[in-house]
């Protein structure tokens, strides 16, 4: 190859290319894949539909809460529901998940109350749930950093001899991070029970995927020595099947898998972002036709596995959940000022205790009425 051959990467194929694993087409047609057979009952598909709708409804509510000044910021998962619900429902209770900061759908699958997600964005805490209780780590905002924690955790599982796996969530932007690539190396050479679940939503804030990679991301895995799979990230059935297989491989000593969930960030990066500055509305329209929820609805309707009453009931449940989340958000208590000093260390230091005492005295100097 000469220097002249090195051009910029072509914009990605919106269909995901020939290697894309798909079990449910955008039109809602059930298709089969030789490597990922999926036996799934109608009831299970209805449950997945319910997850998708509820997760999107909570997300819409959180965006509204931000617009009304109740959240400082919100990172919307709009468009990525299937990637998160499919992979999240593939997890067993003993498996551990390491999210970034957008995995509200995975949190839902792990049983984390959506209200607990809001503390970070409302500014009332920095991580509102117990990672051990739900096997779902607190959010990680430094891009890619959690992939190393996931890898170390998986090394611990190996040493404990437990039949469990770890899943690490990150995005296409994170795939450029040193930590993520170090995690690939570690996971590979130590053969850790780990699934790298990369939601390629095509955009890292304003930077398109071709600024991160000249080859499809899933093809990178081979260079690190483990399999890479590209799955239709808007197909909840495919995400479920592919993640289930990868987790099972991990649990049974076959090492890591890289899953590239090919999806699209239909909303802004966060509520502070303005995607009209850097991408075309036509692109969004194209992806709207691949919506992760509509195809499940079409499948259920067409196959007669769900009727209008079912869909209405789910919508009602979604609205009730949204109302509860809204109230829960408004009810989140502002932390007391002196809690600034809590939990900096396991073993408190006299140094910090002195700062706390002085600050308390300072606050007290304004008198009780001003508190």
């Amino acid at each position: 190859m000469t220097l002249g051959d090195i051009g910029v990467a072509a914009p990605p194929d919106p269909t995901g290319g020939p290697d894309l694993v798909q079990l449910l087409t955008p039109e809602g047609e059930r298709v089969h894949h030789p490597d990922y057979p999926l036996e799934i009952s109608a009831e299970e598909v209805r449950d997945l539909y319910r997850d998708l709708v509820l997760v999107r409804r909570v997300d819409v509510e959180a965006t509204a809460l931000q617009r009304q000044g109740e959240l400082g910021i919100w990172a919307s998962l709009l468009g990525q529901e299937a990637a998160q619900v499919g992979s999240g429902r593939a997890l067993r209770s003993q498996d551990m998940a390491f999210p970034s900061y957008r995995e509200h759908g995975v949190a839902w699958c792990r049983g984390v109350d959506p209200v607990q997600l809001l503390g970070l964005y409302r500014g009332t805490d920095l991580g509102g749930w117990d990672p051990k209780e739900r096997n779902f780590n607190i959010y990680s905002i430094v891009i890619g950093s959690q992939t190393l924690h996931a890898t170390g955790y998986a090394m611990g599982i190996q040493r404990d001899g437990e039949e469990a796996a770890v899943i690490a969530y990150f995005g296409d932007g994170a795939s450029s991070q040193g930590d993520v690539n170090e995690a690939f190396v570690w996971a590979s050479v130590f053969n850790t029970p780990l699934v790298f679940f990369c939601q390629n939503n095509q955009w890292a804030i304003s930077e398109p995927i071709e600024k991160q990679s000249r080859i499809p991301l899933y093809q990178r895995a081979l260079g690190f020595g483990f399999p890479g799979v590209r799955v239709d990230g808007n197909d909840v059935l495919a995400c479920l099947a592919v993640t289930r297989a990868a987790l099972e491989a991990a649990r049974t000593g076959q090492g890591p898998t890289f899953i590239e969930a090919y999806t699209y960030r239909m909303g802004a990066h966060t509520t502070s972002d303005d995607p009209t500055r850097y991408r075309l509305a036509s692109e969004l329209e194209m992806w709207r036709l691949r919506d992760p929820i509509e195809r499940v609805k079409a499948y259920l309707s067409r196959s007669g596995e769900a009727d209008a009453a079912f869909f209405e009931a789910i919508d009602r449940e979604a609205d009730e959940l949204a109302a509860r989340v809204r109230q829960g958000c408004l009810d989140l208590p502002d932390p007391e000022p002196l809690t600034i000093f809590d939990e900096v260390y396991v073993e408190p230091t006299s140094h910090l205790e002195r700062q706390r005492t002085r600050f308390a005295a300072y606050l007290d100097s304004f008198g009780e009425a001003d508190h």
Partner: protein
Amino acid sequence: MPTYTLAKALNEGLRRAMEDDPKVLIMGEDVGKLGGVFRVTDGLQKDFGEDRVIDTPLAESGIVGTAIGLAMRGYRPVCEIQFDGFVYPAFDQIVSQLAKVHYRSKGRVRLPVTIRIPFGGGIGAVEHHSESPEAYFVHTAGLKVVACSNAVDAYHMIRQAIASDDPVIFFEPKRRYWEKAEVDLAMAPDPLDQARVLRPGRDVTIAAYGPMVKVALDAATAAEEDGHQLEVIDLRTLSPLDTGTLLESVRRTGRLVVVHEAPTTLGLGAEIAAHVTEEAFYSLQAPVLRVTGFDTPYPSSRLEEDFLPDLDRVLDAVDRSLAF
């Protein structure tokens, strides 16, 4: 009572910690068969196996990041960073993750990770092998930072650091690795968060840590010939600082000289000077003085004797303090 070099004392301390707690792991570059470039982990992989003494890929962020994950799983990893200047690739994992996870998780997640870092100059090394990066970590809430200066402390402090439920950055004075002392293995050590007065004196307090403790002690011996009694404090703990021991001493001597290899600006000396001025202002007979490395990159090794504080520079500061 055995006589150990400082490196051997660390090795014995690590061995003991691994015997006491099966969750203790060692991880780093070349820590296995080679026993580390300074041989601090010599023989441990042979005795505890490759699952507990882990030769890692050559990536410092990976070492610390995976140690965090192991700690989340209930392990107690001890990471070796091969040289001080190589800790920076792990800076984010230390500062944004290791230091903050306990706080971010409201105390639900503890990260009992120890990060051993050979630090300081004086061994004629090439660049990036002689640095003193402690201030970065002292400036970071959530970390405990300690430095041993002798074999006795090395043996006990490494065990205390590993036993701590907080993350500890453990600085080892690389140029003192080969210095020997009798190590009382059975003694009850001072708590990890305490400084120690190594030599009492009434005229000037010298506060030092790590490799500079020996320089301070030598200066005290030399000053005695001039009729000056220097009190030498080995700080041992840099975060939190044991300000009680410092203040008690300065209130008696009225004079303080802080010695470290790290550059002057915003080093430990700056913090100590500010604190002592705030808390013992009326006891001071002279401003707090600092004898430190310069505000330059660490120079090439043929210049390091000029860069590093030595006995004469300490005595010069003592004279300036006494002249006030």
